[in-house]
């Protein structure tokens, strides 16, 4: 420390100031980002009659735990949760496997036409979802596949350009030696994929699965278009907020109970994210290629 020149000392002081400033911004931003989340959690414990009162109180009084009980019992919450879980799991599993296959092929196999096909994949990244969703709906409706989970299965099976790209990038980074060694042992591309690439792609698989899962879990558009009220997902159920008292044949909105339901609904994706955030954020660094 004592060996620092005046210039260096000035620089380090500046650096400290700059860092202090940076921390202030970071904490303020963090607070702003957290406020909506905290407010929802607090409000989910308020009575419906307290929620509409003004001015809004920060802390719920009384603390209505029952909101959470009602959130789970007044609609068949678990039925919708199951629908969401089922769709998300089926779609994610299928699409992770097929995207990994396709990504592997683009990264590691050679064939005429490959370049052009990859060009299509990349350009599909740019195709707005909205262009395909209605024509697909028209088609599925005519095939009587609306109000079934088939569209998700079919979407899953046919892989997703984003994840193809993701796996392609991942597999491109795998050293050639590994594959060569396997080839020397006489393994074909399928064995190489299943026994070497797939098991070593855990970070990518986890990331891809979670992103897909979170995507379907949170998706509101596809289920609201495709599925009727019974088969739909939590996203749709909570968006239209028809939590109602038992004995109310009209199904009207009860905000605080819906908020409680929304909190429960948000837990799975957040937990998944925290479990795999090292994979999601650090991703490829730990490729398992040691």
């Amino acid at each position: 420390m004592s060996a620092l020149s005046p210039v260096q000392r000035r620089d380090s002081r500046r650096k400290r100031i700059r860092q202090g400033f940076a921390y202030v911004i970071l904490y303020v931003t963090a607070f702003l980002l957290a406020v909506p989340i905290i407010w929802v959690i607090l409000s989910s414990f308020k009575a419906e009659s307290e929620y509409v009162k003004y001015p809004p109180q920060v802390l719920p009084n009384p603390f209505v735990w029952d909101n959470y009980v009602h959130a789970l019992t007044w609609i068949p919450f678990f039925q919708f949760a199951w629908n969401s879980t089922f769709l998300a799991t089926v779609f994610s599993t299928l699409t992770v496997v097929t995207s990994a296959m396709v990504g592997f092929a683009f990264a590691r196999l050679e064939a005429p036409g490959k370049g052009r096909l990859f060009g299509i994949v990349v350009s599909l990244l740019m195709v707005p979802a909205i262009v395909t969703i209605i024509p697909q709906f028209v088609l599925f409706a005519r095939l009587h596949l609306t109000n079934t989970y088939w569209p998700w299965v079919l979407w899953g099976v046919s892989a997703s350009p984003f994840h193809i790209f993701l796996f392609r990038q991942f597999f491109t980074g795998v050293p050639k030696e590994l594959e060569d060694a396997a080839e020397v042992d006489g393994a074909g591309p399928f064995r190489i994929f299943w026994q070497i690439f797939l098991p070593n792609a855990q970070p990518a698989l986890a990331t891809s699965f979670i992103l897909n899962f979170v995507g379907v879990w949170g998706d509101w558009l596809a289920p609201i278009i495709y599925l009727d009220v019974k088969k739909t997902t939590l996203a749709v159920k909570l968006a239209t907020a028809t939590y109602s008292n038992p004995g109310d044949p009209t199904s009207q909105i009860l905000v605080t109970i819906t908020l409680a339901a929304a909190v429960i609904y948000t837990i799975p994706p957040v937990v998944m994210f925290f479990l795999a955030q090292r994979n999601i954020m650090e991703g490829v660094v730990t490729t398992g290629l040691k």
Partner: protein
Amino acid sequence: MATTYSKTTLSANKPRRWFWQRTHTRRITRSIAFYAFISPWLIGFVLLGIIPLAVGILASFTNYDGINVETVKWLGSRNYSRVFNDSEAIYAFQRTLLWSALNVPIWLVVSFTLALILNQGIKARGFFRTLFYLPSIIPVVAVVWAWRLLLDPNNGVLNAIISIFRPGTAILWTTEYALPSLTAISVWKGAGVGMVIFLAGLQGIPRELEEAAVIDGATRLRVFLHVTIPLMTPVIFFQLILGIIGSLQQFDLPVLLAGGRIGSVPPRATYFYVVHTMQQIFTFSRFGYGLALMWLLFVVIVIFTVIVFRTSRYWVYYEVEAKGEGK
């Protein structure tokens, strides 16, 4: 001993022979394997991409109502000319452009700024990065509920806070200021994603490059403008394109805020093009017309993308081998 020796030679030689003898066959097998591997995507692309699009294009020339095939009539280009006479469609398109012009730059600037700050050798970087990323994991339906509570004109938190200084405030965040409010929500939800991408980009910039510039006497601002920004342009470019594509087809946020049914009509300020399209399709059963609206949007998006690509050569710096030079 001798047996062992011969065994090793054998196992070393056998595959080698296999290799050389079958090179040609292997090329064909590999091609077959390649197509086998990509077949799920390829079949899907044709059946769920090409075919629906073809059907969709055909349907956009009819009065198809989504239900009855018997009453379908061929309208020629009538649906398309109708778009240009549909003042609501034009209005909605203008709002969409305005929204994109507001949302995309703010999102880029906020996420880039956050990434820059986090790149300053912040100790708790991991913590902040996770926290900032978190809103993007929260499902949009829950996000909208959260923001409704904050923005409600009558008993929302925001107006309650303002009322401390100016009693009786009832600013119509969700209608009169719907566009800025929507931008706030969208940035709140999306900034983390942008930040992570920018941060990854920033970490790819060799420290030495910036330090060298500083040693040469450049100010931090100059380094930022002349080293950091140019090196980040490919990332910015990429984000810009995705931001534009996403913004032009914005649908779920305004509709969820307006009630969350497919036919919910958002406030005027956020009556976007795709909202109008969905209204036509699902409220008025005008599938044919809705598809025509959709195709025109697609054309617009393509045009925007092409424009950005075309101009990119003037401002995007392609870091040819730049990453390796630091070593």
